[in-house]
């Protein structure tokens, strides 16, 4: 525990302040070519033809790739979890978001590469784009562009993520008041100061050295290997220095296309997104549509919650189902609500695909549930922190996913926050702890959800030792 409370210098601090940290864009390899991509000018369109003849004739062009040059074009980030692939590295047959890469060029300079990109001829047949998750699955929305239809269908036996607990009908029948709210956190660009960038160097050994700004080295390595159909031992990734990521550099945005170009050109190839490219075509945090209905009593107990969440995946699935699953897991927030019905859908639209960003899935649900609790408090005329303390998770409570709480932090954190900002609380509330419910804090509706005394310790031991493993 030498680090806790100590002022330790950053391991990379001296390099940062002397300008010696080597980011991908600072690596210099003789003979490096520049990559530029042809991107879809349409939100949604069929691709009738791609002609690279004129582009190949531009002096200084060394390689051009389209979907025909990708050994394994269609890939899915969640294939390892058994989810089928849906996203091509380079568009094939159609484009599903404005900015989707269709072809890429490696040339002696950025300017020449861009000139060649401009000389690629593509014939499109535009389709009506779907841009709003609230209407994406409407019956009259017409034929959907995605091969799976408007709704991502691979949540086990369901086409959406579900949580069912207790008797939600009875809870709503028993409520004194039903509080409704709609919350719509919007898309956010990660906006790292270092844009997406990679440099791929073909080695005489037949391997590729890949300088990458990725946040997820082994994940990116797997993505490149999958598209190339190469074994991992032919790829040497050099990374770990990231000029800001915030989740956006979990995507493998440039590495695979640079690798294909480098193999074809027998030259190092570098791709550095322009700032405009970063804003318009790199993935974003997802936009969400969240509806919450709480069944509450006039003295401030939350008996039940019905919740509908729509998650905008953009054109392809990427990590969206994973984000929605986390969202579902946290849909009661830091509070104990015994009767639940949660339905969460991942919908496809013709927007840029969405991805990881700082607790994705959880930030959206936290925003919605916390705003909603304040709305409940306002409608009941109850202090918003006292409402939270009353319904807070306590030892022995079970979550929507039947996890038994062994050390919940809602009460001490709420009390500490109140004290830090000088928020006045009643004496009963100031004296609260996370201890197992009893007395006034154990009303009838919370009895059944409470685990038998001591069970939380058994659950904790099983989770933290190998006692549960055989």
């Amino acid at each position, binding site marked *: 525990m030498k680090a806790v409370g100590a002022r330790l210098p950053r391991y990379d601090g001296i390099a940062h*302040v*002397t300008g*010696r940290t080597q980011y991908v864009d600072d690596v210099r390899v003789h003979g490096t070519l520049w990559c530029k991509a042809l991107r879809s000018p349409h939100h949604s369109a069929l691709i009738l033809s791609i002609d690279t003849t004129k582009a190949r004739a531009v002096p200084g062009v060394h390689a051009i790739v389209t979907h025909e040059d990708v050994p394994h074009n269609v890939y899915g980030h969640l294939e390892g979890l058994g989810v089928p692939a849906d996203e091509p590295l380079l568009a094939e047959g159609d484009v599903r978001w404005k900015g989707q890469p269709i072809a890429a060029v490696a040339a002696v300079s950025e300017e020449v590469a861009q000139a060649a990109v401009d000389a690629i001829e593509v014939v499109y047949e535009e389709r009506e784009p779907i841009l709003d998750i609230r209407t994406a699955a409407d019956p009259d929305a017409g034929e959907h562009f995605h091969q799976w239809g408007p709704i991502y269908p691979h949540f086990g036996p369901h086409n959406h993520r579900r949580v069912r607990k207790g008797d939600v009908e009875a809870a709503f029948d028993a409520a004194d008041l039903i509080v409704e709210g709609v919350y719509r956190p919007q898309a956010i660009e990660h906006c790292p100061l270092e844009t997406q960038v990679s440099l791929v160097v073909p080695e005489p050994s037949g391997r590729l050295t890949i300088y990458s700004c990725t946040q997820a080295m082994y994940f990116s390595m797997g993505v490149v290997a999958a598209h190339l159909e190469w074994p991992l031992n032919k790829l040497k990734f050099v990374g770990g220095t990231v000029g800001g990521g915030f989740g956006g550099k979990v995507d493998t945005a440039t590495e695979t296309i640079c690798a294909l170009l480098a193999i074809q050109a027998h030259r190092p190839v570098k791709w550095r997104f322009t700032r405009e490219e970063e804003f318009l075509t790199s993935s974003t945090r997802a936009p969400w549509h969240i509806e919450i209905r709480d069944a509450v009593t006039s003295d401030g107990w939350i008996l039940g919650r019905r919740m509908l969440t729509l998650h905008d995946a953009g054109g392809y699935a990427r990590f969206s189902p994973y984000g929605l699953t986390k969202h579902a897991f946290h849909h009661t927030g830091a509070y104990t609500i015994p009767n639940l019905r949660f339905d969460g859908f991942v919908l496809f639209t013709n927007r840029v695909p969405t991805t990881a960003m700082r607790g994705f899935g959880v930030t959206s649900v936290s925003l919605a549930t916390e705003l909603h609790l304040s709305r409940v408090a306002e409608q009941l005329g109850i202090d918003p922190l006292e409402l939270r303390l009353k319904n807070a998770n306590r030892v022995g409570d079970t979550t929507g996913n039947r996890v038994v709480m062994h050390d919940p932090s809602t009460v001490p954190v709420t009390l500490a926050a109140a004290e830090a900002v000088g928020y006045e609380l009643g004496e009963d509330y100031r004296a609260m702890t996370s201890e197992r419910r009893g007395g006034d804090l154990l009303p009838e509706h919370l009895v059944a959800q409470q685990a038998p005394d001591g069970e939380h310790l058994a659950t904790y031991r099983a989770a933290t030792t190998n006692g549960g493993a055989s």
Partner: protein
Amino acid sequence: MRLTVNGTEHEVVAPPLTTLLAVLREELFVTSPKAGCQQGGCGACTVLVDGEPRRACLIPLAAVEGAAIATVEGLGEADELSGVQAAFHEHYAAQCGFCTSGFMMAAQALVDRGDAVAREDVIEALNGHLCRCTGYVKIVDAVTAAVTQNAGSPA
């Protein structure tokens, strides 16, 4: 064309409309100024041109012929940090580090003026420099410390 970078004079072969940033990074391999936006919007490419902080991504080579350019590489060494470098290091003002060079050169210009300045003046001087990691507080702390220390010491 001639350019003096961190005290060393260079004969530069790039065409006159090449940006100073491209000359530094691609021809002279001085890579501390970063290509964050290449539109003058982020400040990551800031260098000193004859002592004044400037966005290297917006300046054509022809406009700075014969000028003295200063970058972070010229401030100090790992075992002999300059006042600004030491302040950034000690105050944890560099996180991912990508914007750091630009902030440090703006800070250096403020230090070079030699005046004692208030925290508000530091914030004003750093206006237009974007950092996505720190939330700026540690950077303002570092620059305020560097400026204060410098102003308090004999010239």
